[in-house]
């Protein structure tokens, strides 16, 4: 289907079904129960899951395929956000031009940064991209963001926001009741949501989430096609041995540059979508910690795999948004069934790992994954699957000691 083989089609369908049913899957606990804190099915977080998924998918096209580790991808995310907010300010609240413009701007930026940075590889490339990203961050934070200067592109630390007197030449300047209009996709407002009450459960369906999810599925499909294309094979060639490519007479630079620009455009798309969901762009989005985050997402999920980065993105965003909100009150609620002394002991025991300690928990999990599952969460999933398969199918063949390797296909 759609030019994919059976396995990839199955993967795409699984991802599509999961994203479609996310409001149900992410809200397993009934409202009002102690564990409801762990629910993640509210619009803002679901939007972040898919948007950062797009960011990580794009990053994986560069890092997973070519092995070039960019430490400056947040710059494209941030630039995409600024571009989108400017479109909202100048053109109107329709999201399509905003998203397209943010992709175009970040592609141009990626072309420039990639052209310079890709002259080096390995750690030098990483440092170059990091330096460029920090430059962008500082430009956005203070140089281009002084509200008192006449050239104020980013509004500095406060972040670029919509105001009531923006021109919005193709849209309305203010809503009938005098407020700032909301980003919309042909009338579907990104903030619109519908609550479905089923018994004690509440499931929220948000317009913004489904828009972002549709874009994510398209981005995911394109990523599969890139992975399976001759172009993708060439990128894998760059990863396994670039020097050999040069010896055989192939100039690898255009391929790596193309991969860099594609991945930058993905980041710009993610940034633009972030601005669509919440029309504000802040310089923190471009900070090096944000660049590091996408590296963590990709490695945590499984670099070079299709679904891995999306899983990693979800994992990290879940910890950032859910674990950071568990406070002592919530903990007391959880352990209320224990005797008083034991309850206090358990709360003290868990306390350092939740709330402001979410970084600690995430760090420990990241270490565990990298040490025991070098292939990331995807490898974990494969191992579990493998466990079940082995149990079901007893080892075939008459001679258990003799394992002839299958003849490799020429194409592999």
């Amino acid at each position, binding site marked *: 289907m759609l030019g994919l083989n059976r396995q990839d089609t199955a993967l795409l369908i699984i991802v599509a079904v999961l994203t479609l049913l996310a409001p149900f899957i992410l809200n397993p606990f009934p409202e009002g129960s102690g564990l409801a804190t762990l629910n993640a099915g*509210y619009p803002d977080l679901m939007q972040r899951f898919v948007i950062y998924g797009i960011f990580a998918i794009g990053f994986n096209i560069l890092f997973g395929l070519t092995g070039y580790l960019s430490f400056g991808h947040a710059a494209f995310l941030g630039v995409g956000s600024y571009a989108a907010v400017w479109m909202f300010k100048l053109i109107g609240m329709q999201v399509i031009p905003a998203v397209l413009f943010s992709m175009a701007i970040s592609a141009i930026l990626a072309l420039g940064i990639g052209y310079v940075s890709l002259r080096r590889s390995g750690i030098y490339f990483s440092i170059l991209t990091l330096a460029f990203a920090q430059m962008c961050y500082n430009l956005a934070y203070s140089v281009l963001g002084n509200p008192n200067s006449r050239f104020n592109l980013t509004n*500095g630390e*406060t*972040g670029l926001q*919509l105001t*009531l007197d923006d021109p919005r030449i193709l849209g309305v300047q203010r809503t009938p009741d005098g407020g700032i209009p909301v980003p919309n996709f042909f009338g579907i407002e990104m903030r619109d949501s519908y609550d479905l009450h089923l018994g004690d459960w509440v499931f929220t369906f948000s317009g913004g989430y489904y828009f972002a999810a549709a874009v994510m599925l398209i981005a995911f499909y394109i990523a599969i096609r890139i992975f399976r294309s001759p172009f993708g094979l060439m990128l894998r060639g760059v990863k396994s041995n670039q020097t050999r490519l040069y010896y055989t007479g192939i100039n690898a630079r255009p391929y790596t540059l193309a991969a860099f620009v594609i991945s930058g455009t993905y980041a710009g798309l993610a940034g633009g979508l972030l601005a669509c969901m919440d029309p504000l762009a802040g310089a923190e989005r471009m900070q090096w910690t944000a660049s590091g985050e996408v590296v963590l997402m990709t490695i945590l999920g499984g670099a070079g795999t299709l679904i891995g980065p999306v899983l990693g993105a979800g994992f990290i965003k879940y910890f950032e948004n859910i674990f*950071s*909100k568990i406070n002592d009150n919530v903990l007391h609620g959880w352990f209320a069934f224990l005797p008083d002394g034991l309850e206090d002991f358990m709360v003290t025991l868990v306390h350092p790992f939740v709330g*402001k300690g979410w970084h600690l928990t995430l760090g420990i999990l990241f270490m565990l994954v990298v040490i025991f599952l070098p292939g990331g969460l995807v490898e974990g999933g494969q191992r579990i699957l493998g466990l079940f398969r082995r149990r079901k199918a007893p080892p075939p063949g008459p001679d258990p000691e003799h394992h002839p390797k299958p003849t490799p296909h020429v194409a592999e």
Partner: protein
Amino acid sequence: MSNSKFTRRGVLRTGAATGAGLALPTIFTSSAAAFTNEPKGPNVVFGFNVPQTGPYAEEGLDELRAQQLAVEHINGEGDGGALNTFSSKALQGNGLLGKKVTYVTGDTQTKSDAARASAKSMIEKDGAIMINGGSSSGVAVAVQALCQEAGVIFMAGLTHANDTTGKDKRRHGFRHFFNAYMSGAALAPVLAKAYGTDRRAYHLTADYNWGWTQEASIKAATEALGWETVATVRTPLTATDFSSYLAPVLNSGADVLVLNHYGGNMVNSLTQAVQFGMRDKIVNGKQFEIVVPLYSELMAEGAGSAVQGVYGSMNWNWQLSDEGTKAFVKSFGEKYGRPPSNSAQTCYAQVILYADAVARAGSFHPCAVIEALEGFEFDGLGNGPTLYRADDHQCFKDVLVVKGKENPKNQYDILEIVEKTPVEQVWYEPDHPMFAGGELGPCNPGE
């Protein structure tokens, strides 16, 4: 090969279950909410969004303590604190409109993005009716705009930039804390009296929005009294070593150094300036002086003996002697074993003020609450008579000018109050050039 058996009973059963399942949502969604997060159960949820990690984590922790205390007092636990001295008696210490107040907390990380994500999760997931707290103007402006869109009330915590109630003001945002303009207006006369009117000032300014408005405000206020500004130098917010910025100060002919820094920046720059021996120098025949326009107890604690004799301004200080301050400090001290900082006091007051407005309005509807807060005059929360101005949602009250104590008796006894600048002196009109532009916009009930 199929195993499925369609029996008559099976089909009937499945059909009935499906029908019930489809009918269920319509039963439960019949009651539509009139505004965002209208509290329906026995509880009402407040959202406390404070920095728990990052450079202002200490401030955030203290804010959280005060917010929890305020919730206790509203629910009638503890000794009632400043509710006993508060001029409005709408809060009875029995919850809020018959509901118990509960709260959720979040981490702003002092980043606009993270703060908005955290506030959004409180609004969308936990059903918070009000967001309070924060320790940065960038965050305050970002969260304020979000609350405007979502239709909940934002009671700002520590935010000192003019823009919060200036060009970035919103109908749903309220600021109890004072601002950079007020700091300048309160501080300049005291400085002129202490150091003379022919001083030459050198500004080191944290290179972001708050730093800029602070610098502009102090510069305008001191120049109006005859001071001259030699230079204004911007330092990166992430800087920890200021020696390269401090070295040129003495050769510039300046005799006062103004540090427009906050938090860790201020602790480092002030400590290093003092270590340079700047305060022992005589320049232009005058003693060299250092000024820190915005003080906080937690910063002063961090800078230790370096703050001795250094002037600055504050929104409130626990050493004030009015009844509201005494009641609040007593109940905070009994619970946490330390005096509250001025950011804690502002958050405490904001939570009480919100709850009181709900009680007076008799409704959680944001438009009614906004109406109750706009133009509200009150007393007894520690700052003296205060007005919540309707034009820009800024509180007008006395501003404190403080000085680092020369002989502190204990670790909390660091600052002494030099002057209580009356509100008339820090008053400005809503269309003042530093606050012009922007408008509040309409009240937005959401949903």
